[in-house]
C-alpha cells in the first residue's frame, strides 16, 4: 500500500509569528495515510483536531511543516483533498441537485452531470434531488455535505466531526456511505468525540492532545495502552491513556507517540 497523504512536522501557532509566547495549536505533527485507510483523529476539546484537518484540507495555512498528497491536484482545480466541514457548507436556498451541480462546475470537472448523478446515487439522495437544502433533515444535509466533499472524487477525504449532529440511524447511513468510499480506495481521515465510532470503523487512531500527536496506531493497540482487554471500552482506554500522558508530562517525562 502507498501513502496518499503525508503530513510532516506540521506546526501551527496563533498570534504574532515571531512571538515566543504564540499559542501552538499543533506542534511538530507527522503521520501518513494510505489509500483505503480509515483514520480517526481523537482527543479532548482544544487538542488541535479541527486545526489539523483544516490545514490538510488547505483551509488554513501551517506555520511550519508540509502536507503532501500523492495524487496530483485534479485537472481543473482543487487540492486533491475532499473536505467535509463540521457544519454543512451548502446554499440553503438551492436544491440538492443545484448545490452538487454548482460545486461540480466550480471544481471544473470534465463531466459535471455524471459526477452529480454518481453522488446522488451513492448518497441515496436521488429522490430528494430537487428539494431545497433548507428543507432537509440534519442527516440528509450532512450527506449532501459529504457528497460535495466527494464530488471531485478526491484520493483523500477529510471529515470534521461528521456525525456530531446526527441521530443513530442517520449516523449509520453516513458511515455506510463513507465505508463504501473507503472500500473503493479513498483514504479517509475523520475527527470525532464519539470514540466508539473510531473503535467500530477506523483502522487507525491518531490521539492528539495540546497540539501534539501522542498516539498513532490501531484501535486495539490503544486499548492495550489504556489498560483495557481486547474488545474492551476504547473510550475508557483513551481517558486512561490521556491521564497517563498528562501525568508523565507533569513529572517531566516526555510522552510521545510510540512510547510505552
Amino acid at each position, binding site marked *: 500500500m502507498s501513502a496518499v497523504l503525508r503530513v510532516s512536522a506540521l506546526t501551527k501557532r496563533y498570534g504574532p509569528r515571531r512571538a515566543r509566547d504564540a499559542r501552538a495549536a499543533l506542534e511538530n505533527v507527522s503521520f501518513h495515510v494510505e489509500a483505503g485507510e480509515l483514520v480517526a483523529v481523537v482527543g479532548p476539546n482544544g487538542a488541535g483536531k479541527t486545526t489539523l484537518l483544516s490545514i490538510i484540507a*488547505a483551509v488554513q495555512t501551517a506555520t511550519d511543516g508540509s502536507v503532501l498528497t500523492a495524487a496530483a491536484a485534479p485537472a481543473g*482545480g482543487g*487540492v486533491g483533498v475532499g473536505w467535509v466541514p463540521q457544519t454543512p457548507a451548502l446554499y440553503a436556498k*438551492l436544491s440538492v441537485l443545484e448545490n452538487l451541480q454548482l460545486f461540480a462546475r466550480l471544481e471544473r470537472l470534465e463531466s459535471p452531470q455524471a459526477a452529480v448523478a454518481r453522488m446522488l446515487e451513492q448518497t441515496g439522495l436521488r429522490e430528494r434531488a430537487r428539494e431545497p437544502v433548507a428543507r432537509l433533515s440534519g442527516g440528509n444535509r450532512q450527506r449532501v455535505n459529504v457528497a460535495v466533499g466527494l464530488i471531485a472524487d478526491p484520493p483523500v477525504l477529510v471529515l470534521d466531526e461528521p456525525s456530531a449532529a446526527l441521530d443513530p440511524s442517520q449516523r449509520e447511513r453516513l458511515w455506510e456511505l463513507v465505508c463504501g468510499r473507503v472500500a473503493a480506495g479513498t483514504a479517509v481521515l475523520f475527527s470525532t468525540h464519539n470514540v466508539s465510532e473510531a473503535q467500530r470503523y477506523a483502522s487507525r487512531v491518531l490521539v492528539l492532545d495540546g497540539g501534539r500527536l501522542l498516539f498513532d496506531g490501531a484501535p486495539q493497540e490503544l486499548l492495550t495502552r489504556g489498560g483495557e482487554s481486547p474488545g474492551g471500552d476504547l473510550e475508557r482506554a483513551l481517558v486512561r491513556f490521556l491521564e497517563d500522558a498528562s501525568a508523565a508530562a507533569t513529572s517531566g517525562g516526555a510522552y510521545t507517540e510510540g512510547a510505552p
Partner: protein
Amino acid sequence: MRWLLRKDLAILARSRVLLALLIVYPVAIALLLGFAISRSPAHPRVAIVNETVPGETIKLGREHVPVAAYVKGLFDEVQAEYVATRAQAVTKVDSGAVLAAVVLPAGLASRLASSTNQAQLEVLYNGNALEQSLARSTIESELARANLEFSEQIQTAARRVIHTLLVGGKLSSIGGPERILGLEHLPATLGGVAARLPHGSARTQLEQIDAFAGFAAQNLTLASRVLATIGQPIRVQSVLIHGRHTPLDTFAVVVAVSLSMMLLCVLLAAGGVALEREEHTLARLLRGRARGGGGKALISTEGLLAEKTLLAAGVAFVVALAMLAGIGAFVTLELSRIGMWLLALALGALALSALGVAIGALAHELRAASLLALLTALPLAFLALVPSGAVSSGLGKVIDVVSFAFPFKPALQALDTAVNGATPSLAPSLLHLALLTCVFAALARLGLNAAE
C-alpha cells in the same frame, strides 16, 4: 465566476421578500418623489382673528385700501381659518387644528396710516420644533412679502407727492392747496420778476429765494430716487460660474436615485459576502489558497469579490435606471443625455458595491454586515449633502475629506452632471469613482485574507 453569479441570481430570485423589495422600492420612491415635486406644497392651516372695525380702510396717498383686502393678500400662502376671538384661536392652536394663529388688533389701520407708528400683529403657535419652525417661517415670510408690498405702495404715494411738488398740480388730497406751482417752475417765474426789479435789496432777496428753489428742486428729484432705493436696498444678481442652473426638483431626483443606489449596493454587496460566511461556504470556495503552489481554490479571492461587486452593481444599476425612468414621468429629464446617465450609474454602482464588499469582508456575519452597511451609508449621505459653507471651516474640511474618501459624493456629483449638466465635466467624477472602486476592492481583499 460565471457559475457563482448564476447561483447568486438564483438565490436572489428565490428570496421573495428581497425581490419584492427590489421591485416595489424603486417604484414607490419614484412615485412618492414624483408626486412630491410635481405638486405645489400644501398650505399650512392658520387661524386669523380680525379685530379691526369691519369696512375699515387704510389710506395710502390718494388710495383707500380696505383692511379686509390687505388681510386677504397677507395670507395668500396659508389656508386661512377665520375665528372671532383670540381665545378661540388659542384653543385651535392648542388642539393642533391649526399650525398657528395671527391676531390683527383693532387700530391696525390707523397705525398703518399714521406713518409714524409701526403696526403690530400677534402670532400664536405651538407644536414641536419642526412645526414651530414651519409656522414661524411661513408667517414671517408672508409678513415680509406684505411689508414689502405695503412699503412700495407708501413709496408710490410719496413719489407722487414729490412729483407734484416739483412740477406743480393738485395736492388737496393730502390737505395741500388746490393748485401749486411746482418747484421746477419757480426759477423761471422768480427770474422774470427779479429782472423787472431795480438792483437793490428786494432783487437780491428774490435771487436768493430763486437759488434756494433751484436747490430744493434738485434735492427733491434726488429724494424721489432715494425712495426707490430704500424700497429694495439690495438687489441680487446671480451668476452661475460652471454648468447650467440646476432646478431643485431635478437635484432632488438625483439625490433620491443616488441614495437608493447606495443603499442597494452596500447592502447587497456586503450581504453577499457575509452570506457566504454565514453558510460556511466561503472557506469551501476559497480553500486551496492556503496550500500555496500545491493547490488551487475553487475561485480566487479577486474572482469572488468581483462577482459580488458585479451582482450588487448590476441590480442597483437596473433599479436606479428604473427609478430615473419612473420619475421622468413627473419631471422633465433630458433623454438626450442618457449615455451620460448610464456611465454615471455604472461607475457609481461599481464604486458603491466595492465599498459594500469591503464592509462584507470585514463583518463576520450577515446581521453585522447589514448593520455596518447602514451605519456607513446613512452618515455618508448626510455629510455629502451638507453645503460646504453651512459649517465651520475646520469641520467643512473634515466633511470634504470623508466625502472624498467614500464613493457617495462622487456618485452624486457624477449623476448630477449626467442628468442636470451641473458641473463642468463628467470625467473627474468618473475617474474618482474608478479610483475608489480599486481602493475598496483592495481593502475587501485584505479583509478576506485577514479573516483566514
